[in-house]
C-alpha cells in the first residue's frame, strides 16, 4: 500500500507540482492545505502517513505546526520543506520534531523516500 501524503504549502503552483511529482513516484496524495490551521485540521481528518510541510506559512508556521502535531500524539512523519536553504533556519530544524528537511529545489520522490522511508 502506498504512503499517503498531505501537502501543506500556501503556493498552489508548488502544491500542484509536488502532487504530480509524488504521485508519479508512487505516493498517494490524499490532501492539500494552504496554511497551518488547515494543515492541523487535515491531519486530524485524513490521518496521512506523511506530511510535506512548508516552513513559511501564513499564520502559524511549519515549525509550530510540527510541534503541535507532535504534542497531540500519534503524529505522522513530518518532512519540512522550503524554497530557502537549510542554513537559513539554523538550529530550528534540528530542534523540530520533524523527520527532516528537503529544500524545494531538491524535492523528488527519491529524496523523500530516502528521508522518510
Amino acid at each position, binding site marked *: 500500500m502506498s504512503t499517503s501524503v498531505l501537502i501543506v504549502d500556501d*503556493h498552489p*503552483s*508548488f502544491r500542484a*507540482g509536488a502532487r504530480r*511529482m509524488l504521485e*508519479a513516484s508512487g505516493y498517494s496524495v490524499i490532501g492539500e492545505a494552504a496554511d497551518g490551521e488547515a494543515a492541523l485540521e487535515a491531519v486530524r481528518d485524513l490521518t496521512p502517513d506523511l506530511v510535506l510541510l512548508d516552513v513559511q506559512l501564513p499564520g502559524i508556521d511549519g515549525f509550530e505546526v510540527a510541534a503541535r502535531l507532535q504534542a497531540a500524539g500519534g503524529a505522522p512523519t513530518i518532512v519540512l520543506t522550503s*524554497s530557502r536553504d537549510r542554513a537559513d533556519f539554523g538550529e530550528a530544524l534540528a530542534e523540530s520534531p520533524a523527520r527532516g528537511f528537503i529544500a*524545494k*529545489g531538491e524535492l523528488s520522490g527519491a529524496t523523500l523516500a530516502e528521508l522518510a522511508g
Partner: protein
Amino acid sequence: MSGLRRALIALGALALLAGIGSVALILTSDHTTPRGLAAALILTAGWSFAGTGLYAWDRRPGNNIGPLMTAIGFTFFFQGLSSSNNDVVFAIGIIGSSLPYAILVHLLVTFPAGHFESRFQRVVVGAAYLTTTVLQLGWALFIDPTKQSDCGNCPENPILIPGHEGIANAINAVQVLTASFGIASTVAIVYLRWRRSTPAQRRVLTPVVLTGGVAFTILLAQLVLSEAGAPQAVEDGTYIAAIVVFACLPFAFLLGLLRSRIGRAEEITTALSAENEQLNVELQAKVEELRASRARIVEAGYAERRRVERNLHDGAQQRLMALTMNLRLARDKLGDDPAATGELLDEAMDELAAATAELRELARGIHPVLLSERGLRAALGGLAERSPVPVELLATPAERLPAPIEMAAYFVVAEALTNVARYAEAGVATVRVERRNGAVEVEIRDDGIGGAKIDAGTGLRGLEDRVGALEGHFSVRSRAGEGTIVEASIPCE
C-alpha cells in the same frame, strides 16, 4: 574728540564761571541773607545739575535728559543774578529765577525716555513754562521789590510800571494756581509711571521718584507757607531744605539714567534669552521631527527589503521551484511518455515566462529604469499605461530634473496611483507634474470615494518622508465621497 564733547566741555567751563559769578554776586549782595548758606546751596544745586547733566548728555547724546539737566543747572544761577545789587542784573535774575522749576517739571514728566508720551504731559510742561516766563515777566513789570517785606535792600526794579500792585498780586495768584497744578500733575504722572513700570524700569525711576517727591513736597510746602504768611525763619528753612534736596536730585537722575542703561541691557538680555529659548524649543521640535522621520525612512528601507524578499519568495522563486519540479518530472517521463513530457515542458515555459515578468516588475519597483534612462515624462507614461484605473497625464516636464527630485516625484505618482487602484474605487485619475516657482509641483487627483489619510498606513507617510527629505511639502486632501488629491511640492531651482 567729537564736536559734541568739545561743546560739552565748553558748557562745563561756562557753568563753572557762572557758578563763581553767582557766588560773587551773592556774597556781595546787600539783600540776600544768609549769604554764605545761599551761595553754597545755589552753587551746589547749579553745579550738580550742570555737571551731572553734561555727563548724561555725553553718555546718552540721543536723550533729552542730559540737556534738560544742564539747563536746570544754568538757570539756577539766575537766582545768583537776583542777588545782584545792580538793578538790571537783579531784574534779569528775578525774571529767570523760577525757570529751573519749569525745566524740572519738563525733566520729571519726560524721565527717563526724554520725550512726551501724551498730550496731557505737554499741557503740564507748557503751563509750567508759561508760568515761569510770560507770567513771571508780567509779574516783574508790576512788582516793586523795595516795598516787599523780605527785600528791604533790594535794588529798584528798572522795568517797573508803578502803581499796579494789584495786577502783580493777581498774576502771582494765577502763578500759584498753575504752579500747584503743575506740581500736582507732575507728582501724579511720575507716580503712575512708577506704578505701571516693570521691576527693571522701577530701578531706574525709584531714585528720581523718591528725591523728586521730597523736593516737590518741600516746594509745595514752601509755596503754601509763603502764601499763608508763615514766619520768615520757617520760610527760609523750607527754602534751604528745597535747595538741599534739589542739589541731590540731579544725582538721582544720573543714577536712574545709568541704571536705565543697565536696565536696558538686562531687558535686551532677557528678550534675547526668551528668544533663544523659543528657538531652542523650535529646534528641539525640528530635531525630534527629523529623528522620527529618519527612523521611518530607515524602517521604510527595511520594510522595502522585506517586501522585495517576500515578492521574490512568493513570486519568481515559487515559479522557478515549480519549473524545476516540472523539468525533473519531464526528464523522468522522457523515455516512456513523450506526450506528457511535452505538456510538462509547455507548463515549464509558461512558468518561466511568468517568473521573468514578475522579476521585471519587481526590478521596476526597486528602481524604475525608464525613469533614470529617459526621464520623468516617459516613466510617468509607463505608470499611466500599467495602471488598472484610466490615468490622464495633464502635464509632465519635458526636461530632465535632478535625479533625487525625479525619483521622489515618480514614487509619489506611483504610490498614489497604486492607492487609487487599490482603495479609491475611482473611474479616472489625473496626474500633473509641473515645474514652477522654483519647485516641482506634483498633483494626483481621482474621482473615487476619498477618505485617505497620511497616518492610516505606511505608504503615504513614506512619501511624506521622502518629499520632506528634499525640503518639500506633501499633503493629502481626501474628504469622504469627494475623491482624493495628493500633492507634493519639491524645491527645484
